[in-house]
């Protein structure tokens, strides 16, 4: 779960976002976009943080 928990969560959110916008209308589109935005945000956050070179 430590290994696959996050990938599974992001995968489910992506799938829900892609499908939700297809079947839903109006408000569902926004909700779907929100779900799709999570993997993008998580990826960007991990990829861009500590760009200044600070070590942990």
């Amino acid at each position: 779960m430590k290994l696959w928990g996050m990938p599974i969560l992001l995968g489910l959110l992506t799938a829900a976002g892609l499908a939700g916008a297809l079947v839903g209308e109006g408000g569902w589109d926004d909700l779907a976009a929100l779900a799709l935005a999570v993997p993008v945000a998580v990826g960007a956050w991990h990829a861009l943080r500590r760009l200044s070179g600070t070590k942990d």
Partner: protein
Amino acid sequence: MPTTLVFVNENDYYLHSFTPPIPMTSSTVRRWAWIHKWSSLVCTLFMLLLCITGLPLIYHHDIVHLLGNDAAAPRMAPGTPRAGVDEVIAAGRAMYPDKIMMYMSQEVDEPDIWNLTLGDNPTDPNYKPIAVDARSARVLAEPAFEGGAFMSLMFHLHVDLYAGVPGKLFLGLMGLLLLVAIVSGVVLYAPFMRKLDFGTVRRDRTRRLKWLDLHNLLGIVTLVWALVVGATGMINTWAELLLNVWQTTEVAEMLRPYQGMAPAPATASVQLAVARAEAAEPGMKVAFVAFPGTPFSSTHHYGVFMRGDTALTARLYKPVLVDAQSGQVTDRRSLPWYLVALLMSQPLHFGDYGGAPMQFLWALFDVATMIMLGSGLYLWARRARAAKAAAQAGASLEAA
């Protein structure tokens, strides 16, 4: 690609951080690494091309509009009556009296415009697009072919490499390799990330290690999106094949009563055909009319393709076949599953079904995928260089 690094001593990363999981022996990892390396290597440059050309295609409508290559309907009082479909066709044909009608269509969000395409024959690739006002039946514009030179270039580089159906199928094969690369990449994610927290990017060690971590991170966060867009893109490359199957099975069956009859000129009023189709499918609107001889119709019919009004049903056309001489509805049936799959694949590939936020997310996923592809290529190149250097070092050691 980077996973081949696993087996070199160039870096101690693998040996120190990798404990083979119980079910996965090192030879299993080696096999998956080989699959990942070669499937990616073959498709990566094409995938980069698809990502680069796909970016403007996400904003196709907006760019065509900005370039002034689309048609706009003038504002008229709400409730202005619509012109007859036959009048609209006559206006278009007056521009090219020697050409025949191929299709006429309406976009969901632009009911004031009929988009006509005319050609020298029903499958003319150099068709003429004409936009006609649906109310005044006046020709509004001859929109630039394929949205203008730039968008046309992006489109062909993305869709068929200017090589028609074989070009499409080739790109579809590259898409299949991408899917193999994604799946093998996920399998390899486990041995690489087992000892690391999700999202770890080791910036304080070697540059290669940093890019390896970024490759794994971007690969895993874009996973489902890339799988869906890759798979639906591949399905889209089969469009002609699937239409052919439909032609030779269901359309052939619908044509059985016409066996032995020479193709007759389409004399029935299209307006009447549309009206009858609308009466046959209450609650649905015309998406497009395919004229006799086009791949969406038969030699004896107008194919009137109806659509519903929800996001989903607007894409699931229902064809009503109208005899092009008698004007009678002769057949209507739901599309077969493989054409439904094709039609559903289009929005999921284009990302055009959830408004501006989704378009923007599509662009972000696209950019992340490019970085993922580029980093994979970089990791492979580093590995190749390291191997060469090691071989040379070995050789000079032997010489000495």
